[in-house]
């Protein structure tokens, strides 16, 4: 019974924790502009993150080494260091977007300016990081994030032409008035939103936080393989809502209130309240995960003691790094940048930074010295190589497409 409960909790938090500000914004923007014609990218991204999280979780459980310890060991100090700089900057950018997301959601709930909420959001994130136990912060945010399921409820209540939506999804074509480069730019953005490096840093370091061993591999695999695809369905529902409400009216999504509008249209105040709760939980949870990831990456590269299982006084540099990251994110937001714009950039830079994190994990997941009998099987390796090609291609194409399209114009 206890085991079933643990599996259910793991799956539910994986679903609730899957969607963050990147998924919310990118799926809504893409739904409004391209309808369902980019759903295939969400599918590719979800399979990719399942593969990657599952490998890094297994490596962490069996070898006891989290992702950035592996990167440092295999790539050496120089390439590893360049990777650290890139991954750290992308994670801080994502953290900034998440804190902005919390403030935007609180603004929606309270009608108080987001700029007034930003310092409180940053402070709250830091207090939770400092005081709350790892398992509590992970589970509470994940479970509350489940209320985002109202996007799926709203999609049904809007009563869309299902045939049309399915047709857009299975016969993807570029919508009239949009360029082909723009289509591919948003494809990369969606891919980066689904496969964000911090998710893997968090997942593998979380395996150490929760003291996983080889015995826990099976459960972690269930969490990932069941939870993430269901989280992916939520992403698709967000895109679907935007496709039904905004695409026919040719309205671009540029604010969080627009992202929640279809839910309000379909279900009134009650669903709106739930969706705002879900967005606060999802962005708050992701802010914690990204902030922890900044500490994990730095500490694992430099060999500092890290982890929430240490008291802050025993892992001072780890906690200082997180504090500085939260502070930087908060200060950046106070310059009045638009959190939605920050989010759109963060997902693309995630896609750019991904290959250097992915490659060492793929290699170490095959190393018998580390993994013993738990090395990758043939199917995982075949899929792993296919994804290596996809990830490298997306990373290389991102900057040229960003320039060519004026960041999606």
């Amino acid at each position, binding site marked *: 019974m206890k085991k079933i409960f643990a599996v259910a909790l793991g799956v539910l938090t994986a679903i609730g924790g899957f969607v963050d500000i990147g998924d919310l914004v990118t799926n809504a923007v893409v739904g409004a502009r391209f309808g369902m014609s980019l759903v295939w990218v969400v599918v590719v991204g979800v399979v990719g993150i399942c593969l990657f999280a599952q490998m890094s979780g297994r490596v962490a459980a069996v070898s006891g080494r989290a992702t950035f310890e592996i990167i440092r060991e295999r790539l050496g100090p120089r390439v590893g260091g360049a990777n650290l700089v890139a991954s750290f900057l992308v994670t801080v950018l994502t953290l900034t977007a998440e804190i902005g997301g919390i403030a935007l959601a609180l603004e929606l709930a309270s009608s108080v300016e987001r700029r007034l909420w930003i310092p409180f959001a940053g402070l709250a994130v830091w207090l939770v990081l400092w005081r709350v136990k790892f398992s509590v912060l992970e589970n509470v945010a994940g479970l509350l994030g489940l209320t985002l399921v109202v996007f799926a409820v709203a999609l049904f209540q809007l009563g869309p032409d299902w045939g049309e939506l399915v047709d857009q999804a299975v016969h993807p074509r570029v919508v009239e008035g949009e360029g082909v480069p723009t289509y591919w730019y948003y494809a990369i953005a969606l891919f980066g939103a689904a496969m964000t490096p911090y998710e893997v840093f968090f997942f593998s370091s979380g395996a150490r936080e929760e003291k996983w061993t080889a015995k826990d591999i099976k459960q972690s695999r269930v969490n990932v393989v069941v939870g993430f695809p269901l989280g992916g369905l939520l992403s698709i529902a967000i895109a679907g809502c935007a496709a039904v409400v905004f695409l026919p009216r040719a309205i671009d999504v540029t604010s969080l209130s627009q992202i929640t509008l279809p839910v309000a249209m379909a279900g009134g105040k009650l669903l709106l309240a739930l969706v705002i709760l879900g967005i606060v939980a999802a962005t708050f949870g992701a802010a914690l995960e990204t902030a922890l990831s900044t500490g994990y990456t730095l500490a694992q590269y430099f060999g500092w003691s890290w982890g929430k299982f240490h008291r802050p006084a025993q892992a001072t540099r780890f906690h200082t790094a997180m504090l500085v990251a939260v502070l930087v994110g908060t200060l950046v937001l106070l310059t009045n940048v638009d959190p939605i714009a920050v989010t759109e950039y963060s997902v693309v830079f995630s896609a750019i930074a991904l290959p250097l994190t992915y490659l060492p994990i793929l*290699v170490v997941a095959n190393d*018998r010295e580390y993994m013993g009998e738990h090395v*990758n099987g043939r199917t995982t390796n075949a899929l792993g*190589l296919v994804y290596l090609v996809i990830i490298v291609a997306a990373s290389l194409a991102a900057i040229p497409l960003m320039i060519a399209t004026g960041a999606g114009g």
Partner: protein
Amino acid sequence: MLLSDLLDAPVHDADGRALGFVVDVRLVLDGPLDGVLAAPRLHGLLVSPRTGSSFLGYERTDENSPALLARWLRHRHRGTFLVLWDDVLPPDETHTPPAPTITLRHDYRRWSPALPQH
């Protein structure tokens, strides 16, 4: 001397012929006790003839998967060998900067880069 002085440094034999680049160092834990572990000692350098980039650990074992990746890295780093630190001439300290060149003794020996199997 720092690890980053060694990594990627060009390696020459005693006659000045280029042999390749340092891609990794091999440490052994057989020094006096330092805390809970024995102090590490520099055992040797891994020299790859064509590139200073990482071999990603494929030199240590005969691990062969994922096949395409392993084959490509083995091809890129073919001829990689281990040279013992005792076979390296003391670096010319007067010659900094730029990055030092590693020069080997004229009777240096090439060892297999694989880790001993136990």
